[in-house]
């Protein structure tokens, strides 16, 4: 029970962090058809910007400054990079963002060094919020939940209550039609791209000190965010939300459940040891396969339901 509750809370925190990244990516991917490889790199930049700003001014200004910087960078990338490459087709766009991710990683290594930077939780939030069965729940995780819930509310209001949001919703499923109706689709694209990058930056600010701020953080996070987006389905923020939470729970529960396939087989009366065929595969405990699970999920969903959980069209 204790394990379940604590893991649920941790899974929720991680899932919401994933959603912050994945929501922007899902909007970009659905509207522009571009799988933005650089999205997780923007998340990393958000963390590094926040580290630099919080060193000089403090954490609270960083919470605003870093996402704004990331959003501005995103707008520049869309206007001067992607729009130009768009002429050469979707593959070229995808490769462009891939190259960008590559360069951003190297640039971060050159500017901030190869080692993790000491980006820490602010002192005001560095205490225990409450105890669950003797386990501490840090205030910072509560703060992360609060920020992501607020962001979720803000996106939802923006998409359903504003004119811009309605145009974006329409462009998610019928981009050509929206253009034909006389809306400035390129500007909508730039806005969404910049907004998505700002959200990724925000995720970097609050995730960078929760996890570790290092040059490889983009390449560890990136594939997982892709899995979330594909799993949730194109054109569906709700699917993206559910997929983020599923992924959060899968990853946290995989870490705490010390079972292996051999244990499952033992339950039905088959004994497995290292000596049996495939014994090595079967006796690996779940926490060690945890890292594999997202990719197994990705391959399975693309095979059996290419449109994802709640998607409206195939990937």
């Amino acid at each position: 029970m204790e394990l379940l509750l604590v893991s649920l809370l941790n899974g929720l925190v991680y899932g919401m962090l994933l959603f912050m990244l994945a929501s922007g990516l899902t909007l970009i991917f659905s509207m522009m058809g571009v799988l933005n490889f650089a999205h997780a790199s923007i998340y990393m930049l958000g963390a590094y910007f926040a580290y630099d700003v919080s060193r000089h001014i403090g954490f609270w200004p960083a919470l605003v400054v870093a996402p704004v910087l990331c959003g501005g960078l995103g707008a520049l990338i869309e206007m001067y990079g992607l729009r130009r490459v768009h002429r050469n087709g979707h593959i070229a766009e995808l490769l462009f963002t891939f190259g960008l991710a590559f360069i951003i990683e190297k640039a971060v290594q050159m500017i901030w060094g190869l080692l993790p930077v000491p980006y820490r939780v602010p002192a005001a939030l560095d205490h225990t919020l409450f105890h669950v069965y003797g386990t501490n729940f840090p205030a910072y995780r509560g703060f992360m939940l609060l920020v992501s819930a607020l962001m979720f509310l803000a996106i939802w209001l923006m998409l359903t209550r504003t004119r811009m949001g309605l145009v974006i919703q329409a462009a998610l499923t019928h981009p050509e039609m929206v253009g034909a109706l006389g809306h400035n689709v390129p500007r909508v694209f730039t806005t969404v791209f910049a907004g998505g990058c700002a959200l990724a930056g925000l995720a970097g600010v609050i995730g960078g000190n929760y996890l570790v701020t290092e040059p490889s953080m983009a390449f560890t996070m990136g594939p997982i965010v892709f899995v979330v987006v594909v799993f949730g389905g194109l054109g569906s923020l709700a699917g993206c939300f559910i997929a983020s939470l599923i992924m959060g729970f899968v990853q946290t529960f995989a870490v705490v459940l010390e079972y292996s396939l051999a244990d499952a087989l033992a339950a039905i009366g088959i004994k497995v040891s290292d000596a049996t065929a495939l014994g090595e595969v079967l006796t690996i405990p779940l926490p060690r396969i945890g890292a594999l699970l997202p990719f197994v999920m990705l391959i399975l969903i693309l095979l059996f339901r290419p449109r994802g959980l709640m998607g409206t069209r195939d990937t």
Partner: protein
Amino acid sequence: MSEILAHPGARPVPTTGAAAFARRHGPWFLALAVALALPWLFYDWSRARHSGFVVAMLSQMSMMAIFALSYNMQMGQAGLLSFGHAVFFGLGGYCTAHALNAVKGGSFWLPTELVPLVGGVGGLVFAIVFGYVATKQRATAFAMITLGIGELVTACALMFHTFFGGEGGVSTNRMIGTSLLGWSYGPSIQVYYLIVAWTAIAVALMMLLTRTPLGRMANACRDNFERAQFVGYDPSIVRFFQFALSGFFAGIAGGLYTLTYEIVTFDTVAGAMSANALLMTYIGGVGAFAGPVLGAVLIVLLQSWVSLLSNSWLVYVGVLFIVMVTFAPGGIAGILLMHEPLWRAGRLGRLAVPYARLLAPGVIAVAGFVLLVELCSFLTIGAAQGKAFKLSGLTIDPQHPGAWLIGALLLGAGGLVLWREGRRFRAAWEALVEEIKAGARA
């Protein structure tokens, strides 16, 4: 473009017979001759030794050429963007390592010359397994599945010790004493000649494959898979065959890798190696058969030569890649092919002056960019390694703002002039093409 062919002053193009064969395949035989002769250019006669650096670099180029060509079987010829191609390279390498150890241990007999074939078969088997899953989809879904497979295999390589040897990898010894030629394969030059032979075979086979119905149908499915379906072919089967065969050739490259380095680690299946295949192939050019070879040669040259001079060589590769994607989606081969009609019309000389005008600002802008990147890298990584930034004996202090100012000025001024000259060059180019077209019509 066909009207350009009919230009009266055009160079005659043989279409049949030995002349056509020589014209079409001449560059390949020339490349083979160069590959065979190059190690002797760097031979140290006084000590009667080959230059280890050059032989290692050439070996790397050769095997990477196979790897990039096999990648282009998917990317260029079948229009399949894969992010996990290194899986077949690495698994081929692992299979080869185990085969070498088994032959050494006396389990079975296999001539050293045929050992890379084990890698090829290993790559083929795994490509059949993974390809069965991946090729049901195309485009972005295919790219995502291959990304997932790549990550899966990398994670497995670190997890399972019996086959992959964990983080330490699998070590082996190529001197198994079963050579048909009586070579020991101790000296790396012997291995290099084996690699060149296998490269020649693999390149010839891959080129022949493009002429088979399978190769043609792969092109058709790339260009318009719906029409290919109407004709009566199943695109997913075509994709599957192309994928499996491409895995075979990647496996051969992996086998050659194992023979050269005598160790295979999880790096060979990891994402960085897959990215390497993508970079080499795209920078070289996906549209022409020989493009990936050019890319492999260039990237390995950067990798082994520039990485000696600079910590940040990967930044240059990345920037080169972005520039290519943005401005020259055809890669180096595409740029060269654009000149072909002009060359046939005998007007290539007219571009000499516009090119010369591009050269100076280009060099200045690149110098400025390199200076800025190096300053940045010496400020952090270089400082951590305790190195000083030296330029032909002159030590540059990366803390000093003057160096940064010079770099920014060079990049800014060079870039501006380059941009203006670029527009002028484009105008000159278009005028020339128009002129040739008009000449052909007259």
